[in-house]
């Protein structure tokens, strides 16, 4: 019975939909979500993991939409990424920042590249180590310039390390990511690059930790240090508390409660974050 059954398995290949093959071979959720800057990662921190499910020899792509609504502002992001071989990721994001209370709108485009250098998220002793860059172009530089920003474009460089523990505390799978970023972007670059208080690039730390309740649901926290280059208003570190849902390799949804500190002189910007990603 068993023998015959197993021999029929080959026949089953004709009947089973070949979706698995079309979706890429990385394990569910290891493609992560999309960040607000387009790169694969958490919500606000780019991770060492690459976007999509493209494993050895495979191609993958994502499109993503994110909305962040805090007290006096709204950020809308549309992004896309292309990945190859679990090695290289190219990403694009367009950010529109609605100054709801102050009035007006800021806008920038971000091109990103990320490469996995060595190590693996899940297997072996070493963490997965990747390096990346994000080149940002502010399309609405009149306001940033008026409040003391130096440049309308800039490039962030980063190095990230990520590791999963399959059987972590409470017999749950945990994932941690640490990122060091060299940047002079003010509020992501929406307020330009460099400024009258400080004009040079600096290294900043970003971190995320998540626990998978099961393979479809994760909860986690993120923290991101920010520069403070402009005299007109302080810029503060960001943090969020998120829930990620990965019903299939096609779709992921991330919801978060986020604390963005003071932005452009308006304090205590708290609110909601919602991100959708489709992968191919």
């Amino acid at each position, binding site marked *: 019975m068993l023998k015959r059954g197993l021999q029929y398995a080959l026949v089953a290949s004709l009947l089973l939909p070949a979706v698995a093959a079309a979706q890429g071979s990385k394990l569910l959720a290891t493609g992560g979500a999309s960040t607000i800057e387009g790169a694969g990662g958490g919500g606000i921190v780019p991770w060492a993991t690459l976007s999509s499910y493209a494993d050895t020899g495979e191609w993958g792509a994502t499109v993503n939409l994110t909305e962040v609504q805090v007290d006096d502002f709204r950020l809308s992001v549309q992004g896309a990424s292309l990945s190859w071989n679990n090695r290289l990721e190219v990403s694009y994001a367009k950010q529109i920042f609605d100054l709801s209370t102050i009035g007006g709108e800021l806008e920038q485009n971000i091109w990103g590249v990320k490469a996995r250098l060595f190590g693996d998220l899940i297997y072996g002793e070493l963490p997965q180590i990747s390096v990346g860059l994000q080149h940002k172009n502010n399309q609405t530089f009149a306001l940033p310039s008026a409040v003391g920003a130096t440049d309308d474009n800039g490039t962030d460089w980063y190095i990230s390390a990520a590791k999963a523990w399959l059987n972590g505390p409470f017999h749950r*799978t945990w994932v941690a990511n640490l990122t060091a970023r060299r940047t002079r972007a003010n509020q992501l670059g929406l307020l330009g690059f460099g400024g009258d208080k400080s004009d040079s690039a600096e290294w900043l730390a970003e971190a995320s930790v998540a626990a998978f309740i099961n393979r479809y649901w994760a909860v986690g926290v993120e923290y991101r240090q920010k520069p403070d280059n402009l005299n007109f208003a302080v810029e503060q570190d960001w943090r969020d508390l998120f829930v990620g849902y990965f019903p299939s390799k096609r779709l992921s949804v991330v919801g978060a409660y986020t604390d963005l500190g003071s932005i452009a002189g308006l304090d205590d910007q708290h609110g909601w974050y919602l991100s959708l990603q489709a992968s191919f």
Partner: protein
Amino acid sequence: MKRLILLASLLLMPLAHANDLYQQLGEKQGISAIVEEMLYRVGGDERIVHHFDGVDIVQVHELITEQVCDVVGGPCDYQGETMQAAHQGMGITHADFNALVEHLIIAMEKHDVPVAAQNRLLARLAPMYGDITEE
């Protein structure tokens, strides 16, 4: 006497812990069914089925069942080849390995293995990655 019981229970605890994983997988019978389900799915997966061309799948089913039973502390003694010898020259990639792990996870889900037990088994198999894959 009380001390003795405490000592005995402390000594037995790791064993009890290991056995509880074996039990959660449904003992030998459950493991056999999970591995069978996994291999069925592998047979339907064009990404990796070619590795199994000409392989005695019934024997592989027996050996993997034996090995999983052994690895989770069940009353089995795996006598097959080392993982390195068994998979040598196959050129199994990261993608291939993940494909098989995915089928194992789905098989465990279908057999209602609790998430904690799934993770404990996966954590014991994942270290074999280096011996099985070649990149």
